């Protein structure tokens, strides 16, 4: 089973062969490294940019303006912040030109904590990205969705932001990508660059096929009747685990993998909450003006009379950074036991 880094690599390969993807670029994205998470190894169109995030985003916008497809990487979302006005412009170009220039470009960047990355390798970007009007924003929780969402981003005529949870880059999924060899050792031999001299190495790509995850479509990963838990990325997996554990105690937890942050699948949330009457939103971005707050607000105002308990958001603490020591990190971003106790609490609430 491919891990997320391999899934991203295969999606990019598929796109350069089938969607006329012309440029995959960013810091250390080309040979010999192929990306700090190896997500761009062996690609024909991958090249190393200058160490300049604004240069990367600006160039991506120009490439899109001239009509070519590109995927630009910001090495860590922690370093995307100095590009925010360019991201805003990428998002408003079609609108400002009254529909004349659309910018079909994809920016991918690793996000979130979970690898003891300390202050500047742990930032989240989902809440910030949700404020970039004109962009589509996605965040996968498993390799197959990463593959399908990235392909959808590359095909989309709008600027798309692909947030990959860095703690999941080495995590394998439960489903094969269509065309992927069943034995993960075979896949590794085909597409992982060797350690040491790579100058003669070429990837041998398996005959992978198209698999699209539509942007804006959520997925129910655990069916349940009692409470809805909405999450995405790394925390989605934690929510699944908690749901499975609580099942043994008789809880019936429905988990929704939102997958797309904007546009988001309101119908999936609404239908689930109409059924359960209880809801918890979980993500690791800081909790003041958090994207989960928007969803929580919407549930509160639109589904108020269907609720059996106050809807809640569990998110990162609004501290200046994620500290390196585990005591600091673990007390800054949501932990499994917090998800669990909040689920119990919400389920125990009597209207």
């Amino acid at each position, binding site marked *: 089973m491919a891990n997320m880094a391999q899934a991203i690599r295969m999606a990019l390969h598929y796109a350069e062969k089938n969607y006329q993807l*012309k*440029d995959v670029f960013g810091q250390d994205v080309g040979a010999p490294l192929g990306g700090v998470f190896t997500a761009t190894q062996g690609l024909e169109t991958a090249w190393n940019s*200058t160490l*300049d995030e*604004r*240069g990367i*985003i*600006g*160039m*991506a*916008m*120009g*490439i*899109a*303006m*001239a*009509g*070519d497809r590109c995927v630009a990487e910001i090495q860590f979302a922690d370093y995307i912040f100095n590009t925010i*006005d*360019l991201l805003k*412009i990428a998002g408003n*170009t*079609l*609108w*400002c*030109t*009254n*529909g*004349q*220039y*659309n910018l*079909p470009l994809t920016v991918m960047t690793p996000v979130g904590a979970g690898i003891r990355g300390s202050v500047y390798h742990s930032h989240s970007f989902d809440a910030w990205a949700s404020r970039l*009007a*004109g962009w*589509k924003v996605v965040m996968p929780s498993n390799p197959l969705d990463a593959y399908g969402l990235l392909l959808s981003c590359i095909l989309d*005529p*709008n600027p798309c932001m692909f947030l990959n949870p860095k703690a999941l880059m080495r995590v394998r999924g439960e489903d094969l990508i269509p065309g992927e060899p069943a034995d993960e050792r075979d896949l590794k031999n085909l597409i992982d660059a060797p350690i040491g001299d790579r100058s003669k190495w070429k990837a041998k790509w398996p005959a992978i096929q198209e698999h699209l995850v539509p942007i*804006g479509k959520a997925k129910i990963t655990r069916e349940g009747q009692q409470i809805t838990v909405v999450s995405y990325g790394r925390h989605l997996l934690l929510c699944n685990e908690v749901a499975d554990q609580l099942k043994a105690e008789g809880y019936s937890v429905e988990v929704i993998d939102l997958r797309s942050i*904007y*546009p*988001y*699948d*309101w*119908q999936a949330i609404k239908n689930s909450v109409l059924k359960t009457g209880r809801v918890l939103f979980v993500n690791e971005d800081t909790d003041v003006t958090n994207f989960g707050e*928007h969803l929580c607000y*919407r549930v509160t105002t639109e589904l108020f009379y269907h609720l059996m308990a106050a809807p809640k958001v569990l998110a990162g603490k609004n501290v200046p950074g994620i500290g390196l020591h585990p005591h600091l990190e673990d007390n800054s971003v949501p932990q499994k036991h917090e998800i669990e106790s909040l689920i119990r609490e919400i389920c125990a609430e009597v209207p």
Partner: protein
Amino acid sequence: MATNQFGDLDKKTLTQIYQLMVKSRVLEERLIKIYRAGESYFWIGGPGEEAWGVPLGLLARKGQGPAFDFFHLHYRCTPTLLSLGLTMVDSIRLMMNRATDPSTGGRNFSNHYCFPQWNVAPVTSPLEVQYPIACGTAHVQKRLGKKSITIVTGGDAGTAEGDFASSLILASRKGQELPMLITVQNNKWGISTSYEGQHGETNIADRAKAFNIKSRVINGNDPVETYIALKEDMEYIRNTGKPAFIEAHVSRLYGHSSASGANPVQNEIDPVKEFEQRLLKAKVITDDEAKKTWADFEAEGIRATEQARSEAVPTAESVWDHTYAQNENADWRKF
């Protein structure tokens, strides 16, 4: 005709440049009048940049797509746009935020042009962002190999932004040089802050030299000097695939924008008047022709204003239009 003072430029070209320079001036003064009459909210534009901007538009390879030249311009580019074929009425539609404004549909300020049919990228208010964006179109042009180039313009004060340095670096990487004409229009002002005191470099153009970019400083108030320099540098870029840099010294004749009053300044060279005098003296044009040129454009400006005034404005419901391509819904209330 005394050709030596006009380089190799023939009478037809000189007259064309002159006419477009006058047209640009008349149009910008018309925009200022529209502002003063309370028919627009803001004016910013290019009086003082005619001698630079007109040859730039005339010399480029005009068309749509990467086989043609790309323009990433700043908000003083009316002279270049008129040379590409902009009509007065389309500039005024933008000024009066009409629904018929082809650049923005009434969404943005004057001089924030966008014309994909001539590869004119949208002019943005954030200064200097056009420089790294321009590197992207040049990158695609290089790949295509049709000898088309990307042109980028901006002010002197804005060169302090990192984006300016980004473009010098991206355009000059060894073996990956980009076919770009990188330019700065140095009017010695950034709103109220004078050039003196903000720069340690002798010329802004010297910064390009550090990246082995062919670079020069020109008198951008002289359309002949500008024309010759641009022609040479555009040919150099098309032939070598490498960037060139021009710092053009220009005037700013109505201050920064309407925010600072848009009043005429007296102590700067007026490139339109100066060129007109030269052409009159050399008998390239006559007094009567000059008077008629001004009067005709003045009349065109008045007609265009009346036309734009009569046209529809954007509807309130249109705020969501073009948030996403193909007008896909972007309003979360309807997800």
